[in-house]
């Protein structure tokens, strides 16, 4: 299996397995990269702001997502 093929399978999995939301897909892919960056760069003001931004962004987007979906409940695919 070529690396190219592997990458496409990984990307396909990320895109197909989640809640079909590009922002959350981005969050899933950025998370491990941010952890790696924090490990390498250590604790400083830049990494602290980045991590805080990641978490606050997740919370804010989830609230935004909920508020917009409440207006269109048909969007939700119930398990």
């Amino acid at each position: 299996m070529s690396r190219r093929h592997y990458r496409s399978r990984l990307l396909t999995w990320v895109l197909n397995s989640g809640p079909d939301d590009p922002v959350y897909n981005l969050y899933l892919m950025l998370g491990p990269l941010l952890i790696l960056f924090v490990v390498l760069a250590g604790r400083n003001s830049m990494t602290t702001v980045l991590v805080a931004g990641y978490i606050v962004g997740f919370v804010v987007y989830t609230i935004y997502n909920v508020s917009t979906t409440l207006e269109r409940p048909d969007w939700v695919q119930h398990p």
Partner: protein
Amino acid sequence: MRSDTIAPLGRDLGWMLRVLGGLILVSVVVPLVWGEYYAIPGLVISGLVPVAIGWGLSTAFADADSPDKLHGMMIAATGWFAIAVFGSLPFFTVAWIATLTPGGLGLATPPLTESLTVFTNPLNAIFESMSGFTGTGLTMAEDESTLPRTLQWWRSLIQWVGGVGVIVLTTAILARPGSGSLTLYKSEARSQKIHPSIVSTVQTIWWIFLLFTSLSILLLWLAGLPPWQAINHGMTAISTGGFSVIDGSIGAYDSVVIEAVLLPIMIAGGIAFPVHYLVLQGDLRGLYTDLQTRWLAAVLVVGSVFLWLLVSPAYDSVIEAFRYGVFQFVSALTATGFQTATEPAPLSLAVWPTSALLTLVFAMVVGAAAGSTAGGIKLIRLIMLVKGIRFRVSYVFYPDSTVHRLWIDDRVLDEEEGPREFGEAAIIALLWVVFLATSLFVLLMTLPSETYPLEMILFEIASAQGNIGLSAGITGPASLPTAGKLAFILNMWIGRLEIIPILVTLRALFWRGGIYE
């Protein structure tokens, strides 16, 4: 045993072992990064053994039929036991390398601490592995901080994988469509589906789990943990496992911020994945329309307040009692097992009032939501028992011609379905108590007399069987006798699979194995 049983069992067991071997071999990155080169031969051997056996089995039985219900339960039971046995190899081999070659094959070995040398005993290694994979968190290591990073990582990884399930991982990797995957999925104490396809369901579960793991790690780092500790505690918190990489669990930090950050992570681990999926889709109603989540919230609030009141007289201030009471109740109900009531906290669990310990026992027996990473008999069964008992009692107050229906959330169970589901919940609850009592008997027989009070022994067994990990101080390489370790291994194993698959397997082995024929 019949060949039509052996074939699916052999093939799927083989695949599980191959996945396990892969996890061990991938973990070689850790000793490379941390310079623990002496651990690499141990990991390589530990990984190649299950890979070779698994490859042999999965190749020999490649053409096996799809597993039916019996096969599914036998695969789950034997597979989890095999995974725990082979998953103990990294502990065993690394400990022996460090013990036998103080020079470390020319590579620097770690100081021979007691926490490491206990794993030269295979029983201790299997105990640690079973505790890890089942998400229990009881440990044989006296001081986890002295363990090599390689073993710290292996403990966290097996809890992380075990939280979702070894079969769920194997199913996600194999992506084998059909009823066989569904049968296996159900055998691993899961029933809720997110999508019609079981392969899509397990892949979505992993998607959500990975996202939440990243968030947990970064939250803990932001709360002040060093990266290595944040990674390990993030993995064991979201999987409601409870292993720690420091001595004294979370209590050692003595940090309100870290405890406050861990509370939502543990609760998230105790909520079913389909509910998380709904919330990520923007449907917040999924949180309060789901019966189990409503009950989880109610039990968390009522139980935490109740425990707070019970421990308040023992603490200097009500604020302090609130801090430790709430954390310990959430940790127990979600089956995480992180402990703050331990050194250097003012009071350890061992000196908590009996009523408080019994409240935690209740939480550990019940557990959180089915379909989450938590243990215990699960809230849905408690709900079924409560509603079923009310149904049976109210039954006699109505005329015979009345049509009786049992409401469980949005499901209406008729006179046939209601008693059946109530019966299933009652059987699990009864067996849970039977195995608790059996282990209680074993420990009472083998522990030194008058060393531990009854409530403390009950607490420890409930912790093992509910896959929690809270300890009142009985679990340890020297303090727990061999019979107790064997009993706890059994408790953790049956607790993770909710008993029935193990009983089915034992019956199949005795009956189909021809012992009675």
